[in-house]
């Protein structure tokens, strides 16, 4: 995947985007990030500034059109309500560039449907699932809340790390066909399983967020899957959004493929849900 035999003639548009990036300018590309978080820090890494303002600094610098976010504490810790509430306050006061996912607490014991509906009523646009709780995505425990999100036709972002997680997610995707599921972290183990399942499953998309984004990974996926089901995700504010965008910009793919991944595909998923309706 990291070899030097990939041939790709750089296009004028790509050259222009490179030139903008090496000067730290806005990209001049439509960028919609489907995988971001607001956060104050968590166990795995030390966050310098995980505020909404810091996220928006990144979107402004890059000229991004939007970001879909969840509160990181609502996916990695135990403070779902607190984190979702904080995010609700954030999305209520910004310039409509943030679309929020409800962090779904599968082990809380309360009614997940009522909780999730309350946040949807406050402007959230989808759900975020996480595997740490040891409940497989295709477990019956998820059915009520996924059934609710299915009725809305909402997007659901799911942390996945390898073939087992994404296979379980496909189990849910088959039961809830109106939900657009986004499996996170393409490049984590079993990338070929990601590709195969995204190809086979109409309502399954995969995102690019990955801390070890090797040279050639984006190209590998596009060659085997095409670019229509691969979505740009940064995992900001855990990761640098600029660094993650640059992985896509640097890839030896066509302008059309790059534009699909950076934003066009996400636009199809989020368009009718965007607060301003654009």
């Amino acid at each position, binding site marked *: 995947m990291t*070899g030097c035999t990939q041939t790709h003639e750089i296009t004028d548009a790509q050259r222009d985007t490179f030139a903008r990036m090496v000067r730290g300018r806005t990209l001049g590309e439509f960028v919609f990030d489907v995988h971001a978080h607001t956060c104050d820090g968590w166990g795995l890494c030390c966050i*310098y500034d995980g505020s909404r303002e810091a996220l928006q600094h990144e979107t402004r610098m890059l000229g991004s059109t939007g970001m879909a976010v969840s509160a990181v504490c609502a996916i990695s810790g135990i403070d779902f309500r607190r984190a979702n509430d904080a995010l609700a306050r954030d999305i209520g006061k910004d310039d409509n560039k943030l679309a929020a996912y409800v962090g779904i607490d599968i082990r809380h014991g309360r009614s997940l449907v009522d909780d999730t509906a309350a946040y949807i009523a406050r402007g959230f646009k989808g759900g975020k699932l996480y595997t740490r709780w040891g409940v497989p995505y295709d477990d019956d425990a998820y059915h009520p809340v996924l059934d609710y999100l299915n009725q809305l036709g909402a997007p659901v972002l799911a942390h996945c790390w390898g073939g087992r997680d994404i296979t379980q997610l496909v189990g849910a995707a088959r039961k809830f066909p109106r939900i657009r599921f986004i499996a996170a972290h393409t490049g984590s183990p079993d990338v070929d399983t990601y590709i195969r399942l995204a190809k086979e499953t109409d309502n399954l998309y995969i995102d690019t967020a990955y801390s070890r984004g090797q040279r050639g990974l984006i190209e590998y996926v596009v060659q085997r899957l095409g670019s229509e089901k691969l979505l740009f995700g940064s995992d900001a504010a855990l990761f640098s959004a600029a660094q993650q965008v640059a992985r896509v910009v640097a890839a030896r793919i066509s302008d059309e493929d790059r534009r699909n991944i950076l934003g066009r595909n996400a636009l199809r998923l989020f368009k009718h849900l965007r607060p301003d309706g654009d």
Partner: protein
Amino acid sequence: MIEFFDADVLIGRLIDQDLAEAPTMADVAAELARTGAARAALVTNTRIYLSNPAWGNDDLAADLDATRDEAGVELRGIFGLDTVEERPGTAPDEQIERVMAHHAAGVQFWPAHCAYEFASWQCPRLFDLLSQRRLPIFMHADQASYAQLHEVMQRFDRLTIILQRVPYAATRPIMGLMRACPGLRLCTSPHFVGNQVIEQFAHYLGHERLIFGSGLFTYDQLPAVAQVMYARLDEDHKSAIAGGNLRRLLEAIQ
């Protein structure tokens, strides 16, 4: 425009890689031209740790000679060393003279790959000479433990070590280690992807201790460039991280 000087480029064949896919010095020059951010890079090769440092050094020197006239590209080598000081031909002063004859920018240590300890007792004369010559040690973060790095840097406090390919989850220990070891520098890389880690380390430890590196050809160069260029730092600080700090270290080599 800020000029980048890439301190982390590895060429040569990996064990599980076809020879035809192995990156070469010509690929380095082509990639610098493609990205357009850097015209200078420090390069080392896989043969130094997969075969023999002396063979790797010979290849590296020959590759550098062959690209010396490459228009507009400045490439220097990071060479390998044998850490058994007693073997014929591996006396530290002899080894250092040999790599200095190739205008070495530093030496690459591979203790985990090459089954030696990164410890002050492993090669004390070598560490002493490297300190005297102010020749930097480059090392991937997975090659030594934090405790080993700390032990060596406490014993040889004039050593410069540039730690490459640090994982993002290591932010906290690396920050503590750098505080305890003033000679330790952090090389940026696309594996150290934490949001605002550049700003964070610059703020707490000083931008002078950050060195730009891309991790070519495991990673593309542009992501590492973007992480610096979009950082919330003054242009002067970005410029220092991009290349100025490395150039100062190279000028200090004796």
